[in-house]
């Protein structure tokens, strides 16, 4: 099954805590997942201050500054993984380095129900 592991953390402190992960460590973990075949894709993200939110209403596009909701933790990166089941996905997620300072939301990927 495919799972998306969403990495949430407080941007302000993500890189400044004693347990904060270094980029090299994150790269090494992504490499090891790729080697095992579990990694389908993943990237770290720039801070939410760099984000725009796009909506289309009544055919008109509106673009606003920043993310939709103010939350304590922000989305700071993602891993798309292939795992046998939820237990394996949890074992992969718990080793994602920022899990030590933030949290990882593990979401199963939904298959689109296409009309034949």
């Amino acid at each position, binding site marked *: 099954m495919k799972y998306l592991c969403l990495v949430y953390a407080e941007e302000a402190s993500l890189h400044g805590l004693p347990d904060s992960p270094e980029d090299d460590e994150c790269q090494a973990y992504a490499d090891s997942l790729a080697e095992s075949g579990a990694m389908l894709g993943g990237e770290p993200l720039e801070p939410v201050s760099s984000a725009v939110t796009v909506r289309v209403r009544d055919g008109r596009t509106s673009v606003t500054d920043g993310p939709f909701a103010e939350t304590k933790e922000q989305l700071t990166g993602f891993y798309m993984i292939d795992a046998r089941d*939820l237990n394996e996905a949890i074992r992969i997620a718990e080793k994602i380095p920022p899990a030590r300072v933030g949290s990882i939301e593990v979401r199963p990927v*939904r298959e689109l129900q296409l009309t034949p």
Partner: protein
Amino acid sequence: MSISTDIEDLYRAESRRVLATLIRLLGDFDLAEEALQDAFAAAVSQWPRDGVPDSPRAWLVSAGRFKAIDRLRRRARFDASLEELALRFEQATEMPDLDLSVEDDRLRLIFTCCHPALSEPARVALTLREVCDLTTEEIASAFLTPTPTVAQRIVRAKAKIRDAGIPYRVPERSELGERLDSVLQVIYLVFNEGYFPSSGDTPTRADLSGEALRLGRLLLSLLPEPEVAGLLALMLLTEARRAARTDTAGDPVLLDDQDRSLWDRALIAEGESLVEQALRSRRFGPYSLQAAIAAVHAEASCPEDTDWEQIVGLYDVLLRAAPSPVIALNRAVAVAMRDGPDAGLPLIDGLLAAGELKHYYLAHAARADLCRRLGRNKDARDAYRAALALCQQGVQRAFLEKRIAEVE
């Protein structure tokens, strides 16, 4: 003895085992439940004619599997994707060695129903429904919850098991500890709801405690881990006091005032032997320690003989293993028993001042009790009143009201 009585007995004895195996083979709770009913219906119609098969369990699993394939075929007329699934089950010729795998199937089922990805109420409802075969109505009435709420919890839990890929297998060694905690928590919650109902006027619901004991015994037979033995021991040692903990009017009787000749010696002996087994392993945890405390109480033939020194020592270890304000409160009460109420009172006042127990009626009741023993009747009355304002349970409320009248 007719064949239909035999089949009824077999349903009681084997239906959960057959269901667990069908869930593994079919990978779907609802399909497996339908297949189980179909298989027993087929037994009722065929066995009186053809005789009971040599291995009824294997017959039922096999019949259930074929009935499930039939059902998928019929539905495949409307949903072509099911044909592929039916074909896959049909071609899975591998008929597992039932006697070897069937107990594992029940263990798998327990771990799936108690997966930490499910909410606690969902874990409890699903375990009682699938592992213990309680009906949705029975679960609802035991937990004083509306039946549709319980039904919806079970439906949502099954959907999450399917959609999130919650596996149907026993966790690996490395993840066993955390997963087992989640299973033990469900069993203990069921036991406590039967022993200390959180609301309502019935002081105990023995049927729920009985289910929890059956679950505990089943789990220990499938997975002989120290903490499983510890939890079963704790439940047995608690259950042993059931007949003594209420008087003929149904009012609660405190541990000190209980008629110890009413304690069930057989349950105590079984509990004590399990505690020793757990402690000897040196891999024990909070349940084994709580069971050890209950065993020290059980050893005393009268309250004055209680070895409070040992109980305080066990609470010290427990507080390090599983720090919690409730355990700290119990320790404070044990210190008061060992060294006198004036030694326990400052500990309880400290815990109440820290805030976490402010809304816990037993903390106020314990404070009231120590004040009463010190002859500080006004403080006792105020604390009993604070406890009463927080207590929802009918019988406990009556007890507190009686105490208030005594110190008035």
